[in-house]
């Protein structure tokens, strides 16, 4: 029971943040009007609840993707935005917008996920072919691959006058999330549970191919399942809310720093802290310049970059780089 206590407290903290998120916004809703005013109740369920759910699910999705990728690649600096995976998803969405503008969101997500999967495979392939002199090289390779893909995306977008659409959609955010647009994110909930069940296998896969194989693990299959999960999570999240930079990078690392590398034990912490961070960013973005709002993704990008740089420098001090 004593071991569970911190987790319980953290859960309560996140629930408190969720509650705050539910009651902050331009349309005035408080507990009293929720029970008395049917109009307020309607707004509450059409806009506030979906938005908060989307925040929770998207945060969990990116954090979990980060965990899986870091285990599979055995590098702490890897996540969908530093491996080009998100850029591939963006290319997929753009192509679908061009060739099938009327496609349903579900088809778009399928395309984005397929491209994200291809991107993750390309990244792994390139990584397998090059000698790694330092941990820090891996994200540089990933980011250069991402730059290559995004130059293609930019070129296509500029040819068809879709540049500003692309910028809008990349910086996404949660302001347009209402009932009917966020539901696909529930897929992510399934992925989180799947990861929790398979967590021990990913921990073993994280020891490297030879060790994992000699321990009787079907390494390739685990790799494939892991990448599929990441691609699905990235694809769905990119379509619904845009890029969520660095979330999958900083939270898993901070949790590992504090608690070690046991995925199954860390997973609740990873999910809780990324949800907390995401909601905090969203709250800051909503209240700082109210009645306008800065998308949570932009706040996250700024905060994430600072934390990430701090992490690199900390590791440098330990002379591991």
């Amino acid at each position, binding site marked *: 029971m004593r071991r569970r206590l911190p987790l319980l407290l953290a859960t309560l903290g996140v629930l408190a943040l969720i509650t705050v998120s539910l009651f902050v916004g331009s349309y005035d809703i408080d507990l009293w009007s929720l029970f008395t005013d049917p109009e307020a109740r309607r707004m509450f369920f059409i806009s506030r609840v979906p938005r908060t759910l989307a925040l929770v699910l998207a945060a969990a999705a990116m954090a979990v993707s980060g965990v899986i990728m870091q285990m599979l690649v055995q590098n702490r600096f890897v996540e969908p935005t530093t491996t080009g995976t998100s850029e591939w998803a963006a290319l997929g969405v753009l192509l679908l917008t061009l060739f099938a503008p009327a496609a349903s969101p579900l088809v778009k997500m399928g395309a984005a996920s397929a491209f994200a999967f291809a991107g993750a495979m390309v990244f792994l392939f390139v990584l397998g072919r090059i000698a790694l002199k330092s941990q*820090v090289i891996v994200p540089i*390779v990933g980011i250069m691959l991402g*730059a290559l893909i995004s130059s293609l995306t930019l070129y296509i977008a*500029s040819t068809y006058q879709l540049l500003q659409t692309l910028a809008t959609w990349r910086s996404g955010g949660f302001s347009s999330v209402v009932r009917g647009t966020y539901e696909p994110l529930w897929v992510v909930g399934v992925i989180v549970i799947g990861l929790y069940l398979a967590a021990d296998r990913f921990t073993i896969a994280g020891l490297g191919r030879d060790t994992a194989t000699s321990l009787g693990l079907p390494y390739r299959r685990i790799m494939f399942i892991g990448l599929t999960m990441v691609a699905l999570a990235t694809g769905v999240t990119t379509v619904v809310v845009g890029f969520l*930079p660095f979330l999958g990078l900083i939270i898993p690392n901070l949790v590992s720093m504090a608690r070690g590398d046991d995925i199954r034990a860390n997973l609740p912490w990873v999910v809780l802290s990324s949800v907390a961070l995401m909601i905090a960013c969203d709250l800051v973005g909503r209240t700082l310049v109210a009645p306008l709002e800065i998308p949570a993704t932009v706040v996250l990008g700024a905060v994430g970059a600072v934390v990430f740089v701090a992490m690199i420098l900390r590791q440098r*001090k330990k002379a591991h780089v």
Partner: protein
Amino acid sequence: MSEKRLTVRAAAPARRRALPVAARLTLAGTIAATAVVCYLFLFIQGSFDFAFERRLTVIGTMAVVAFAHAVGTVVFQTITHNRILTPSIMGFDAVYILMQTLLVAFFGGGVLAVTDGMPKLLTQTLLMVCFTMLLFRWLFSGRSGSIHVMLLVGVVLGLAFRSVSDFLQRMLSPSEYDVLSTRLFGRLTSAEASYLPLAGAVCLIVGAVVWYRCHRLDALLLGRDAATNLGVDHKRELTVMLLMVSLLIAMSTALAGPMTFFGFVTAMLAYQMTGTHRHAAVLPMAFFIGVITLVGGQFILEHVFYASGMLTVVIEFLGGAVFLLHLLRKGTL
């Protein structure tokens, strides 16, 4: 495997050394000059004076851009000890894009045209140079400084700038965005003629400094210890060279917009074409190849494909593909 590769690569230049380096340089120089002359004088329709003046501006811009990226990349690759990265990875583009976006976001679309002029060019260049020098002082000069950490931090800050730019861009009205977007891509054919004297002067000065220090650059190739043994002040040399590189790339970006993979292509071809590591040969060769690529490419695009505005996009994409292939073949960063 790696040993076999090494011998193959060591043998290759020897086999190709049929032509002496000086002759190769002359040949490349002649091709570059021919491309320039062709571009200037062929296919002129209508007023000669008008077309000639416009083409002269384009050639000037291309020469500056080719010089900046070619010399900047070769020097950058020497001081970072790798043959793949280009200086643009340090976040120049992101700083530039953020500056332009901020200007338009706060002062409206007209501001870009109104503020165009020498002070703006200088301010932009200065800001970009400051950014890299700060990174450098902060991350590389310390006791445990590492060039990779410096690059990664530059890249990450670049990503953050980009995310802020994306956000600001979506708030612009479409007409303002149109004005802005012309600045966010390489634009060789529409650069300001009035900038050219200054940009050319910067190139000349930097060129003189780099040329004077050519042999120290050669020494730097041997690594920190060997270079120090040969009497080169390693840290000072690195600082000077990085300052030169950031000056060149910042100037070129402010003049003609960002390019990522162009420098990589010129440097790679220059090493292959000269078959030597001596900077005195590689640097001019890289410049000639840059001129041939830009001027020749523009000539072909304009008169064969009738598509004049796409040169940078084509170069960037082809360059990116070559980059990827080279990374796979070479197998290290």
